[in-house]
Structure formats: C-alpha cells, structure tokens
C-alpha cells in the first residue's frame, strides 16, 4: 500500500508491529483483514498490529480509526511507550534529530520523552492524572519533572493552562476526583500541554463524555491543535471526532492498516470495503 508522502515529518513510523504470544513468521500470513481475525489459529498468538507505516508533519493531526480490537490503540501505546512494540522503527524529529529509533531506548529513556517531547491524553482521565491530587498539582508534576523549582512560576503556569482549557480557576486547588468527567478531561489536556511538547497523542479523548460535553472538549482540542502547531495522532472509533480533528487518517482492521487517505476524501469515497462499512455506519 502506498503511503502519502510527508516532507520532513515530526513522527516517522515504519513497520511497527506488536504481537502477544509466541512468534511464528507464518502467523503474519494467517491473520489480518483477509482472514477476518487478528488471532492466529495455529499458535493462538494475537497479532495486535503489524506493518504499520505513516508520517506526521508539524501542525498536522493524523487520525487512526477502526473498531474495538483493530489495533489502533496498540499503535498509539507503542509510540507512547506504554506498550513495548515487538518490532519496528519510530523516529521523532524533536528527539536527537530523528536519528534514534525510540523503540530501542530503555524504559527510563522512554519515560524521559514523556516529560517534554511527547504527551498522551487518555480516554480515562485516571490514567493520565493523579485523582487524589489537585488540578494545579497535576500540572506541577510534569513541570517539576522538567526542573521547575519556583512555586510562584509553577502556580502561574498552572493557572495559564487551566484558563486555556477552560477549567474554572477557583477549582485549581480542588482534588481532581471531585471533578466531572468533562472537567477531568480538560485538566488532563492542560497537564499534557504543560511543557509545550511538540507531539501530542490523543487516545479516544472524548469517548465516554456525554454529547454536549464531548463537543466542547472537541472544540478545545481543535483550537489547541491549530494554535500550537503540534504533530498529533488522534485515535478514535468515532468518525465525527476524526472528521473534526484530522486532515488525514488511517483505517485499521484486525491489526492492519487497510486504507490511508485524506479524511474528507475517505468520508466521501471510501475505497476499502471495511472503510465503506465504517463510513456508512457513521453516516446513518
């Protein structure tokens, strides 16, 4: 499958793969969309994602869409470092000028990337936030990790971020557990932006929020993506989210990319039968 050419990408992903269980080269041939499964019937291994290639340019948001179990979150988590990839090559331009495959880094170096190179916003705020800590304290965490040691400056930065993500400032010193789902998600976004990372990964950022709250959060994310010019990857099963946030997207099914297209083109004229099914489902 040909991939759309991106000049000087910020994120470059080549042959990313992740399987669970034992490896048998033949199992790659026995799984995927043609076989209708990601689970190999011989080895019982799961090929969660295989042969994933894409580039993301500065200021661009790439969508990854697919149903549950299609491997889209696996791809994102392999890049984030939450899941160890089985194979592949991922380079980030802001890190060592893209000369290092970050999949080769040890876990400690991977965590370093999360401080100011790459941030993740999870579907569940409990994954990205410490719920027993105040909204301000959650933002202080990445700031102190990056070496901030001035209490006043940390407060100012937290205030600025919470204002930007439309969290009422009088809630800044309340613990996040007492916040509503939508507000938790806004705090999570504020925290993700604390050290101005050039790369933002969003994993189902509005799933689980009710429709009106979700659209508010979605609006905020769209504004931020435009304003900050970060390279972003947005994973969602919801074409509404993909349509609103991304210019280009991948469609994944059973652990493989089945289509790579401009988002509006895909919605108008999906090629792969699975894409057609997804688009049809989203349009009804």
């Amino acid at each position, binding site marked *: 499958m040909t991939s759309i050419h991106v000049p000087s990408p910020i994120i470059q992903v080549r042959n990313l793969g992740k399987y669970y269980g034992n490896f048998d080269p033949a199992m790659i041939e026995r799984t995927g969309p043609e076989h209708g499964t990601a689970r190999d019937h011989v080895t019982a291994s799961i090929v969660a994602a295989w042969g994933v290639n894409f580039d993301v340019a500065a200021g661009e948001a790439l969508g990854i869409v697919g149903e549950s179990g299609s491997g889209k979150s696996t791809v994102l988590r392999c890049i984030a470092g939450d899941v160890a990839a089985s194979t592949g090559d991922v380079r980030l331009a802001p890190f060592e000028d893209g000369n290092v495959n970050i999949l080769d880094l040890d876990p400690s170096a991977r965590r370093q990337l999360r401080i100011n190179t790459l941030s993740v916003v999870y579907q569940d705020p409990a994954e990205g936030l410490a719920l027993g800590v105040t909204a301000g304290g959650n933002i202080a*965490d990445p700031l102190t990790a990056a070496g901030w040691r001035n209490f006043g400056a940390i407060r100012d930065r937290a205030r600025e971020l919470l204002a930007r993500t439309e969290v009422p400032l009088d809630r800044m010193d309340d613990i996040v557990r007492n916040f509503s789902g939508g507000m938790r998600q806004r705090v999570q976004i504020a925290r993700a932006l604390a050290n101005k990372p050039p790369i933002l990964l969003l994993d189902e950022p509005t799933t689980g929020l009710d429709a009106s709250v979700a659209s508010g959060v979605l609006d905020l994310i769209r504004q931020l993506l435009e304003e900050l010019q970060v390279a972003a990857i947005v994973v969602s099963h919801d074409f509404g989210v993909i349509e609103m946030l991304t210019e280009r997207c991948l469609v994944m099914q059973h652990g493989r990319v089945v289509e790579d297209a401009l988002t509006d083109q895909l919605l108008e004229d999906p090629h792969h039968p699975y894409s057609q099914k997804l688009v049809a489902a989203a349009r009804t």
Partner: protein
Amino acid sequence: MTLEATVNSSPTTIAELVGHRTTETFALRDEESKREIRRALLQAVCIPGYQVPFGSREMPVARGWGSGGLQVTLACVGADDAVKVIDQGDDEGVNAVNLRRLVTMSTGIDETTEVDEATLIQSRHRIPEDDMNENHILILQVPVPEPLRGIERDIRELARMHSEADYSRMWVSLYEDKVRNGVITQSTGYPCLVASRYIVATTPIPRWDIPRLHQSKFLTLFGAGREKRVYAIPPYTDVEPLTFEDVPFEVESADGATCRLCGSSESFLVEMPGKQESWSCSDTAWCRRQRNT
C-alpha cells in the same frame, strides 16, 4: 559423669551448655553477622543516601525501639570507642539508658554524656548541639527509611523512582502541602537530596538539625531495624532540604523563648509537658554545660 567425659563430649543439657560458654561475644553479636552489617554500611557510604538492605536480626530490644541503630552501633564499635546514647536530646531517657548499658556491658567500653569524649553517638530525634568532627560517627535510629512511602506504596515502583531519580511526585506533595497549608508542614523526616542524587528521609531528626548534616565533618549512619535498611551521609557531603526557590526552608522556632534552666535561646527548645510557655533545651548535656560555665 567423669571430668574427662565433660570435656570431650558435646553438651547435652542446658546446665552443661552454660558451663561451656566461657567467653562472652564482644558487642553481643557474632563476628559474621556484624561483618554483614559493616558490608552494607560500606556500600551505604559509597552511595550516599541509597538505602541498602541488611539482615536485621532479633535484638534484645523490640523493633521500633532503636534496634536498627543498635545493630549499626554494635557493628561499628571497637575496644577503644566511647559511646553516648540520647533519646530526644536526653542521655537519661529510659530507652537511651537501656541501649547504652547494652553496648557498654557487652563490650566493656566507656560510656559518656560528653560529645568531646564520645566516638559513637547513637540518637533518636536529635543531633547534639555541640560541634562534632571527623572523630565522630552519628548513628540515627530510623523508623521509616523510605522518603517516598507516603506517595507510593508499590516497592518496585519506589525502586524505579529512586533509580531514575524520578522525584517529581515528591515535589508535587510539597506543592500540595504549600497550597493546602500555606507553608510546607512536614517537620521531622524532612526530605533532603543527598549529593545531588538520592532523596533521603532525615527521620527522626527535626528540621532544626538538618543544616548540620550539610557538609558535616562527621559520618552519619541511619539504621532502620524493622525495615531492614541502612543508609549513610558521609562527611563533607551536600545535603539540601527540598524546597522551592521562592519558599525558603525554615527551621522550627519558638519566638523569644529561652531555656528555663540555662537561659539559652540558641539551642533547640522543647516545651515542658503540661506547662505552657515553659521551655528547656532538648540537649540536656549541652544545657548542663551552659549552666556550669
């Protein structure tokens, strides 16, 4: 039983066993187990602030009553040493007296209340007010050696945080403390960064004594018997209490208070139990000397 039989056979009754034990072990414990502690201490000195596990044994004092400090003292003591033991700042505290007796009775070394004369000073809560030097080893009895215990319970995660010097959550807890209370409230066990690398719990000493640890001339050994850890601050090592640039580290103070016995306002003062506004020096040996000179 003939005399010959007694000499040649192993003891079979307790009465015989008692008769067999002709020499007391120096410093209570066998040489092998003391050597094991000294190995752990050497590692602790080599990696300032790093918590080294050691084989904490049952002692004649209960865990939580200074068994860690006692094991360190007994591992370090030699025939030429003189020992001072204080509880709070008091040489006459019941626990201090008991521990000191145990050390002197099992070694025959001298005991003293004077810092000048002591080589080993075991303490709970305080560093003596007097100047200490390269001839001193300060041994602190530690209840909770893990400075991050309050923010993380998983021991593997704690090990990871220390190994990567990933201390941002410690900073967040200081931030939260300041936000909630306006000041950083932690008093004893204030977290300090040792040699710009490991965070240690300076438990059990108050904030007052923390500046004394920075670039100290003396060696400080921390022993936690219940938690089976030792750690160390070698002489001439940087010890920085964690604090924000714009929130100065402050020690405890009792405004305008003076010791009711010696009149000093320069020492660490404690309030007399049950008596408001009646203060006295916590370091009793120092206070006594102030009165006599």
